[in-house]
């Protein structure tokens, strides 16, 4: 992703750079339609690369840069050795910044009557009550938007030497994004 930004000289590159193509994203999500047709298997890819190398010599201008950028969008992560420091630096936790007040997407993994247990990629889950609006859609597997108030409910009480944790995060439920119930309804 970073070398894309350095080489951005043309329109194609700018489109790709703004779409924030990360190492973890699949090539189908990248903007260029050429990469959507890219097969995942080995030999056809090599053939396509060879062909595009030849065509690079023949084409020019926008077409040339389009080819170049669509090749660069394909992640070449066959056997890359990640260091922990680089993984942490590029992780979502660092992207979050100060977690208080940020909106994240979570998934409901357990429901107990009116309590929804939502996992949003952190160490702990959060527990929210089922809202009255569109309440039936909040089932196991539904994706929801939540606003983080506190990542871990822990505080030191008077007289104790260490904090007392509740092993839970504290979040406010904003709304539902997708739900298995809704998907079933729309299919009908």
């Amino acid at each position, binding site marked *: 992703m970073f070398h894309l930004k350095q080489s951005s000289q043309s329109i194609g590159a700018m489109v790709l750079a703004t779409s924030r193509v990360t190492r973890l994203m699949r090539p189908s999500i990248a903007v260029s339609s050429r990469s959507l047709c890219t097969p995942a298997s080995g030999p056809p890819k090599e053939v396509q690369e060879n062909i595009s190398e030849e065509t690079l010599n023949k084409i020019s201008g926008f077409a040339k840069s389009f080819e170049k950028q669509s090749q660069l969008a394909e992640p070449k992560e066959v056997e890359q050795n*990640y*260091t*922990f420091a680089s*993984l*942490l630096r590029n*992780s979502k*936790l*660092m992207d979050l910044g*100060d*977690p208080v007040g940020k909106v994240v997407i979570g998934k409901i993994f357990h429901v107990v009557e009116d309590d929804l247990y939502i996992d949003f*990629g*952190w*160490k*702990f889950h959060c527990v929210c009550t089922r809202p009255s609006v569109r309440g039936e859609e909040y089932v196991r597997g539904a994706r929801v938007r939540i606003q983080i108030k506190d*990542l*871990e409910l*822990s*505080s*030191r009480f008077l007289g104790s030497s*260490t*904090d*007392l*944790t509740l*092993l839970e995060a504290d979040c406010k439920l904003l709304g539902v994004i997708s739900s298995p119930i809704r998907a079933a309804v729309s299919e009908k």
Partner: protein
Amino acid sequence: MKMISNCLRQRSLLTTQILSRFNSTAIEPATTPVTEDQVAKTKPLDHPDYFRVHNLFTVKDLFDARVHYGHKEGSLNDFMRPYLYGSRLGHLIFDLDITAEHLRKALNFTAHVAYRGGIICFFNRNALNAHLVEKTALESGEYAHTRFWRGGIFTNANHQFGAVTRLPDLCIFLNTQNNILNQHTAVRDSAKMLIPTIGIVDTNCNPNLITYPVPGNDDTPSAIELYCNLFKAAILRGKEERMKFLQDNN
């Protein structure tokens, strides 16, 4: 070439044995012949990683399973400081390189214990993951104890079970805490009964009594699932080697 070196090693062991026996009060001479199966038995212990447990996981797997997340700074146990990478806005982060090192040692030990036919007992007091731990123990052919721990199960076993009992040869704690305030009694009891322990220690846990502590997250189900899979794989590898060894010799 290997046979000669093994023989030489055995010879040197014999000579050191004779020398050390000058201090002992032993009566019988120390002339034990080196047999074929003795050479084969010492082979697994000579390797630093006989069961190749380092292939079971990568640092990226640990990262994706959220093993590096710790609690807040307020609940940090002082003894966990060497295992930390740092703190992010009050939330502690484990150094996964150190964790990987410890985890490899723990898995290697588990595989060796399984190879020698030892009983392994899994412990977990977190209700969220109890079923997963029990299932892992069942699938690996070992034992688990995820319920309330009566006081004298290890220390007063003969009395509590009525008969002479064989205690576990290895205790694996996927969660060393009983509840937020107390450590699991079995950690202390295993140390009393000289049972080696492996424990996943979080930032609020005390790693002192545990033989092979593995600093990491013990609250997220994905992390516990990863540990369960790794330990199960190590145990199954050890048992497979044991079956192979027994078949070769019979």
